[in-house]
């Protein structure tokens, strides 16, 4: 899959950007604040994901306007499709593929697949569990529509169940107990499926992360990935019984897939608390590389690789090792200085100034 051309209209600081991309490596150069990351963000949104910077629509639309447009020409096995996204601060944002409306934004992921490396990736290691859960779930969801649906169901069931617990105001009445049985059953069905799918995924994903870590770090330190989910030992049904009193008192669901974490052990120690900054950075890179490999394997298609100012954070040797791991797919990378490590051979360079592409 190749993005051939990208148009950004009133998107962040791009008021009218039109760039052609080739199937090799594109280097985007520009001073800070001139719109490099915005270009990467625009490309990433084409995959139906939310902004990797966690931005809301209001932040994506150029100030003084009500709508932003992202359009792209995408080539898939020598067939070209046109993707159009309208982000609007009033009402719902819309997306079309070949002028056909897509039902859910996430369905764009069937047409465009992308992996983004960003300086914020350190949060994957250091940040709260929610970030790691969404790394897992988003990656699984790309090629698994059943998982996508169960995930939506789980959120819905949890909202209902939490409301029920909140209304009880800390008292376990008979009525609450019978209602809980029903919602528990629904929760258990969705949760066990999510738990099984995540476990299966980690089985493939874990060794691949370990492999990439060793390549990027240049050391043979063992890396293991586990899903931290105590309820999996007994099954959620039993775990819910055990935590029922606590849940009633606190008015929310305390066990289940929405509370799990991805535990990453480096030399048998938790990387979140024990790994050095450099090790954490290598591990974050390994997670992204493994994500790329997974998507490529299950979809049979090479995702677009987006590297947002990644090399400035790395020392020379690790930058070189990362370059060796990069796939032979379409790559877009940004740099403030315009210098890239050895081994990266941009086939074109775009220069950005105040959100406009200029001749380099």
């Amino acid at each position: 899959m190749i993005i051939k051309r990208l148009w950004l209209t009133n998107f962040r600081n791009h008021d009218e950007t039109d760039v052609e991309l080739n199937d090799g490596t594109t280097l985007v150069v520009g001073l800070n604040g001139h719109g490099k990351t915005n270009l990467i963000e625009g490309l990433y949104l084409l995959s139906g994901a939310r902004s990797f910077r966690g931005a809301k629509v209001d932040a994506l639309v150029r100030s003084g306007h009500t709508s932003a447009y992202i359009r792209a020409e995408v080539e898939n096995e020598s067939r070209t499709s046109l993707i159009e996204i309208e982000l609007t601060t009033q009402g719902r944002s819309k997306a079309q593929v070949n002028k056909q409306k897509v039902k859910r934004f996430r369905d764009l992921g069937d047409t465009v697949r992308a992996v983004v490396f960003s300086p914020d990736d350190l949060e994957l290691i250091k940040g709260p569990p929610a970030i790691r859960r969404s790394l897992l779930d988003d990656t699984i969801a790309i090629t698994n529509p059943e998982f996508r649906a169960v995930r939506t169901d789980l959120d819905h069931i949890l909202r209902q169940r939490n409301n029920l617990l909140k209304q009880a105001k800390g008292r376990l009445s008979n009525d609450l107990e019978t209602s809980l049985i029903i919602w528990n059953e629904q929760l258990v069905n969705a949760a066990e499926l999510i738990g099984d799918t995540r476990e299966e995924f980690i089985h493939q994903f874990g060794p691949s992360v370990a492999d990439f870590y060793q390549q990027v770090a240049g050391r043979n330190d063992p890396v293991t990935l586990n899903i931290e989910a105590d309820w999996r030992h007994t099954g959620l049904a039993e775990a819910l019984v055990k935590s029922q009193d606590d849940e009633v008192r606190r008015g929310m669901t305390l066990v289940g897939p929405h509370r799990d974490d991805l535990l990453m052990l480096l030399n048998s120690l938790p990387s979140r608390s024990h790994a050095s900054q450099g090790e954490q950075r290598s591990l974050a890179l390994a997670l992204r590389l493994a994500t790329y490999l997974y998507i490529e394997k299950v979809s049979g298609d090479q995702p677009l690789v987006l590297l947002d100012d990644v090399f400035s954070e790395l020392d020379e040797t690790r930058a070189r090792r990362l370059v060796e791991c990069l796939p032979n797919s379409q790559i877009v990378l940004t740099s403030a200085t315009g210098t890239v490590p050895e081994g990266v051979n941009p086939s074109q360079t775009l220069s950005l100034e105040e959100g406009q592409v200029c001749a380099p």
Partner: protein
Amino acid sequence: MYDGPVQDLIDELGRLPGVGPKSAQRIAFYLLKLPKGDAQQLAAAIVEVKERIGFCDTCWNISESERCSLCSDPQRQTGSLCVVEEPKDVIALERAGFRGRYHVLQGALNPMEGIGPEQLRIRELMSRISDEEVQELILCTNPNIEGEATAMYLSRQLQPLGIKVTRIASGLPVGGDLEYADELTLGRALEGRRELQG
């Protein structure tokens, strides 16, 4: 924004389901242009429906009298009872040719909207089951999370009574094409496949 009564009308219309501020304004201006007689007819219809229509004491469907026409029809089979969420579901099942009796729950379990078992017509359903001779209870709540929860709740409550409880199937629409079915529906249809008798 507009003079008193016009704005009042827009606000009232805006509270209707599926009507946003823009549509409310459009409808209000349409009503302003309407001949007086037509407007009064509409107003009278709204008042009348509130005054004359209530709920059937037996099945809780909407009804003009204490007992709706379906419940007082002696032709209907008494053995099977179809449990639905809303009166409009009764109409749908009637069109499908169901000839038993109905029970309208008037909603589904939905803690987010504060609807628990007490807010639904479940107690009434229980007393009906012991009074009438019900052989089969067909749970026709919607195949979504709230509908499934309601069906699950009912089947648990009914278990000790020892009557046959069935759940409406979900799967492919008749006359449709497989290729247009979404993967979830198709998955359900595959699960619920049945053997053909040769």
